[in-house]
């Protein structure tokens, strides 16, 4: 009887493990297929159209009709918008993270946490729409920008969108610090502010780095919301309030018109591949930061 039961549970175990293996294998396969396809299509610009990689990355002239798809404008746009977003959203998000982990009374965290979770769930088109109807007119009336579309509008929308990521991850970074650190500092007579800035912040630095890097990853990949407010002009950002374009927005704007096999399509695929590579670099950075902490 017992032997039978044991055999049965062994069989269940085998089936379960096989099922899990298949699921995991499928994920790996899907990722490999995606990577392979993007690498294949994304490099056609270089080996089919013979356009030099160097010019693709650094030439500001995007003229696929004239066989010259330089993507420097979009690379710069992505970098500028991301920097803008992290410069605002990063410190603000970390501040809220500190507040939630160290200062906020329990009741307040109970209200704030779900609110932050809702922020994650709001679709990006809603953020874009609000940016278009509230932020763009605001920038137009209060700055020298004649249209209001541009880098600042996109950066602010993005800053708000990456907040939940930065907040939750930095809160985690503080919460995971050993309690003895804080207690020891307070016992030595340090004030709460001194404890936070001199003891907790340095100790949590690698966790905060992860929060910022993942915020950056989110910002780099965001598309729809910023396409609605960035202006989509194929030019370097001439200032905070001038229209420009990012890699993602350019893909969305011109993809409908890209004939299969055309240089424009190849160039857009190259941009998509470039985005994937950026994401992979960011992942490596996260791994590095996590390992340093461990």
């Amino acid at each position, binding site marked *: 009887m017992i032997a039978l039961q044991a055999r049965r549970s062994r069989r269940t175990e085998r089936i379960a493990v096989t099922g899990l293996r298949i699921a995991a294998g499928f994920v790996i396969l899907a990722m490999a297929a*995606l990577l392979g396809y*993007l690498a294949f299509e994304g490099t056609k610009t270089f080996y089919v159209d013979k356009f030099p990689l160097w010019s693709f990355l650094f030439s500001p002239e995007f003229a*696929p*009709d004239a066989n010259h798809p330089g993507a420097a404008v979009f690379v710069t746009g992505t970098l500028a918008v991301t920097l803008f977003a992290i410069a605002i959203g990063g410190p603000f998000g970390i501040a809220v993270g500190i507040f939630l982990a160290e200062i906020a009374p329990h009741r307040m965290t109970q209200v704030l946490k779900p609110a932050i979770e809702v922020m*994650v769930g709001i679709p*990006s088109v809603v953020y874009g729409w609000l940016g278009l109807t509230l932020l763009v*007119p605001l920038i*137009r009336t209060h700055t020298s920008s*004649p*249209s*209001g*579309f541009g880098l600042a509008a996109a950066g602010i929308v993005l800053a708000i969108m990456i907040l939940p*990521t930065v907040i*939750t*991850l930095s809160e*985690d*970074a503080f919460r*995971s610090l050993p309690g003895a650190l804080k207690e020891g500092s307070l016992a030595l007579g340090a004030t709460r502010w001194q404890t936070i800035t001199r003891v907790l912040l340095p100790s949590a630095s690698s*966790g905060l780095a*992860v929060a910022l890097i*993942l915020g950056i*990853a*989110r910002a*780099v*990949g*965001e*598309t*729809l919301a910023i396409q609605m407010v960035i*202006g*989509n*002009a*194929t*030019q370097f950002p*001439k200032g905070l309030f*001038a*229209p420009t*374009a990012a*890699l*993602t927005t350019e*893909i*969305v*704007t*011109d*993809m*409908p*018109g*890209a*004939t*299969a096999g055309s240089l*424009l399509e190849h160039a857009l695929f190259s941009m*998509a591949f470039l*985005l*994937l590579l950026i*994401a992979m670099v*960011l*992942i490596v950075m*996260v791994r590095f930061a*996590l390992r340093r902490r461990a």
Partner: protein
Amino acid sequence: MKRKPARAALHLGVALASIALAACSSSSKTQDAGTSGPGSGTITVAGSTAMLPLVKDASAAYQEQHKSVKISVSGGGSATGINQVAAKAIDVGDSDITAPNHPELVDHRVAVVGFAVITNPTVGVKGLSKQQLRDVFAGNVANWKDVGGADQKIVVVNRPRSSGTRAVFVKTIMGTAPLSESGLVEDATGTVVSVVKQTPGSVSYVALSGVTAGGVAIVAVDGVAPSAGTIVSGKYPIWSYEHMFTNGEAKGEVAAFIDYVSTRTDLVQKNKFIAVSVMKVKETDR
């Protein structure tokens, strides 16, 4: 401590997914329209957003008369229409421009469309010469006062490279002069009109069918305002044929529907298009 890498991975997943979405969003767009093939009792039409009001009206009226036929109409831009019908993803591709690269596509001219140069009302320019238009859209002049308007910065609003409206404007006005890259780019006729409405100093070009409500000013070109009369006689330069492309000869319900669109001249006129039959200027194409 253990929990955190998992959480980090989750966030990373979100970030990655949004990047993947950026790469795929347009391909999923193109597949939406292709759910049913020819001959299924369903006709799928996509393409030019300028043609959208006419094709929508005509499809509603046609389905009223032919209860067994379902017609799905969507936009996407002229190039999308051509690409998708060439890929057999849809039955009919709407376009403001011809498709010289696709010899397999059969062209059906269903109407003539005029395009208006529109500005925000604060600009105060009633008319521009072709040369002035070229200067404005090429970015050679930066302020409206240089072309007889208010002291206000010029904000050019363009359509994306795939746009038929943009192609017609380039062909009829710009010639070889390049469009200014510093302009905004908005991806549909409706969006352009609303951006021009709310942005002081802005100027763009849209199909006359798209300028239904007020809030924008129409600019005369070389002293001629766009109207059915001036386009028919050939005095107003910015117009083109509206094409409905099929992959191979149109058959059955598809052929009947295309014919229906071009013969319902009341709907053609109501949407500010012009029937092909009344054109006095016979040009091979624009």
